[in-house]
Structure formats: structure tokens, C-alpha cells
């Protein structure tokens, strides 16, 4: 059986920085041609693409807000035409957080986070699964969060979206399991990125490993789940959190 990356390409959403950028670099190093999606940080995405190209890999920067229902078709069509093969690995990484305590959280804060962190992943999966079903092969990795498994006051919207992503992962994984497609979630804990830059460092004391993780440590797990070796892993949630959810 040929390696998945020989017959298809990969799409990583929110890949201009942080975990997404590290994942795009890791998949490219594994041999995948990678779509580097971004919403606003064009320079960041271009930097990731350049880095991959200078390492001998293939990458394409793709602008698009995943919260827009028209984005999945645009991204998939651009990749299919650029690389001439279907998307056989999808990493739903794009996410936002708008923190507030539930009693004071606005509808806008709730809806924006659910839309970007959960509904967008659903729409991208739906678009990805059609060609994957025909190919009898595919890998989807949804970037959830420790917050989807364990409470973190002030993040009810983010937690609901990330827990929803786990339920979406499990249910859809079972639906398509017969077709050689695996769907898994990775649940990072406190990872050193822009998103966690303003989180109080007191929280580090709660992490059994007593340090923040790196984007590369998350990317390594995604790389495994996207590989042919992970063919029998589906519907799983892999925590990458220094023991925080244990």
C-alpha cells in the first residue's frame, strides 16, 4: 500500500503560527504537500511556506476564514488544483478564544468561538470526507484542548467547542471507520504560543510536568496520527499536556 502522502496532500488550518505552523512543518517533513491556511497573518504563513520549501518540501499558503461556510470548498479546490491530488490529511487547528465568565458572557463571544472552533471543523470534515471515502483512505486530526476534558473557569465557550470537537471526532470516526479513514483528536494542555501568552503563569504549578509544552511536541503527535502506522487508531483523544488531564 502506498504511503498516504504519495496519493494525497494535507491541509492544516490556522497554520501561520503556533501549533498549526509546527504541524505544517512536521507534515511537510514527513513528505506531505501541505496547504498552510491562515486568516490574517500572511507574513507568518509565507514564512512557514518558505521554510518548508527551503527544506525541499511542498507547501501552499491559503488565505481563508474557516468560520465562513464558503471557505472549505475554496481551500480544497485550491489544493486539489495546485497539487493534483485529493486532500487525504486534514488538521483542524484554527481556533480562537474569547474568555469571560458565563454570567457575563455575550452572545457574540459564545457564537464566535462555537463557529470557529467547532462548526468550522464540522464543515471542513464534511468536505474532506467525500474524496476520502472514495479513496478509501484519509486522516483527520482535530485539535481539541485539555479544556474540553477538564474545567477552566472563564472559558465556557471554548470548553464547549473543544468538548464538542471530541464528540464530533468520535461519532464521525465510527461512521467512516470501514473506509480506511481515521479521525482522532489531540488535546494540548498549556502550550507556549501566542494564545497562551497572557495566561497567568500560576497555572504552571498545576501541570505535573511543571513546564509548558512546545508546538513541536503537539505536532509530533499529529504527525503520527496522520501516518500510515496509525491506521488502527481512530476515535481516540491523545492528551499532550504534561499530565494536566491525568
Amino acid at each position: 500500500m502506498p504511503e498516504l502522502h504519495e496519493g494525497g496532500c494535507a491541509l492544516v488550518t490556522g497554520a501561520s503560527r503556533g501549533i498549526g505552523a509546527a504541524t505544517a512543518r512536521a507534515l511537510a517533513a514527513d513528505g506531505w504537500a501541505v496547504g498552510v491556511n491562515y486568516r490574517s497573518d500572511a507574513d507568518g504563513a509565507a514564512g512557514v511556506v518558505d521554510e518548508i520549501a527551503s527544506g525541499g518540501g511542498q507547501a501552499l499558503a491559503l488565505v481563508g476564514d474557516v468560520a465562513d461556510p464558503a471557505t472549505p470548498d475554496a481551500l480544497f479546490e485550491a489544493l486539489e488544483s495546485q497539487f493534483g491530488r485529493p486532500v487525504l490529511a486534514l488538521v483542524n487547528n484554527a481556533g480562537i478564544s474569547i474568555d469571560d465568565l458565563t454570567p457575563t458572557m455575550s452572545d457574540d463571544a459564545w457564537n464566535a468561538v462555537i463557529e470557529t472552533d467547532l462548526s468550522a471543523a464540522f464543515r471542513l470534515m464534511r468536505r474532506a470526507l467525500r474524496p476520502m471515502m472514495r479513496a478509501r483512505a484519509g486522516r483527520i486530526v482535530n485539535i481539541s484542548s485539555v479544556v474540553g476534558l477538564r474545567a477552566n473557569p472563564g472559558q465556557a465557550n471554548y470548553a464547549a467547542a473543544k468538548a464538542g470537537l471530541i464528540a464530533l471526532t468520535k461519532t464521525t470516526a465510527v461512521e467512516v471507520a470501514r473506509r480506511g479513514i481515521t479521525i482522532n483528536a489531540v488535546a494540548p494542555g498549556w502550550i507556549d504560543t501566542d494564545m497562551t501568552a497572557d495566561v497567568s503563569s500560576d497555572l504552571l504549578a498545576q501541570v505535573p510536568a511543571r513546564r509548558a509544552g512546545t508546538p513541536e511536541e503537539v505536532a509530533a503527535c499529529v504527525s503520527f496520527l496522520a501516518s500510515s502506522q496509525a491506521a488502527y487508531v481512530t476515535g481516540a483523544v491523545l492528551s499532550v499536556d504534561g499530565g494536566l488531564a491525568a
Partner: protein
Amino acid sequence: MSVTTEQVEGRVVETLASFGPDASQITRSATFEELDIDSLDLVELAQVVEEEYGVVLKGEDMKELKTVGDAVDLIVERAG
């Protein structure tokens, strides 16, 4: 675009056979249940039909289908 029942039947049988059952078992009167064709297989069949004949079959259309003949007749009717 007008297609014949024979053409559609040939394409449907070929697609269903790719899901597992032996082509000889796939007769007009065979039920999807007998053939072990599940609902996701029918989604995939609908995808093939859409690409080939431009006929869009929705989830509710597929739910009504019990036999291979039901599927062929519906596709021919819609494509006609």
C-alpha cells in the same frame, strides 16, 4: 441528458460491487440489507450518481430506497 435504465443499472451495480457484495448478487430485487450495503454506502452511491448524471439525491430520498431496483428507477426518473 437522457440515460437508459440499462446504463444506470450498470453503473449502480458496478458502484455497489465496489462496496463488497458480489456483482452476481446485485439484482434489481436484491435489498440493500441483504447486500450489507449500509447508509454510508448509499451516501457514496449518491455521490457517484451526482457526478455521473447530475442527479442530486438527498438523505430523505435515500431513506425510501429498499432495493437496487428502487435506486435505479429513482435515478432514471430524476435524470429523464
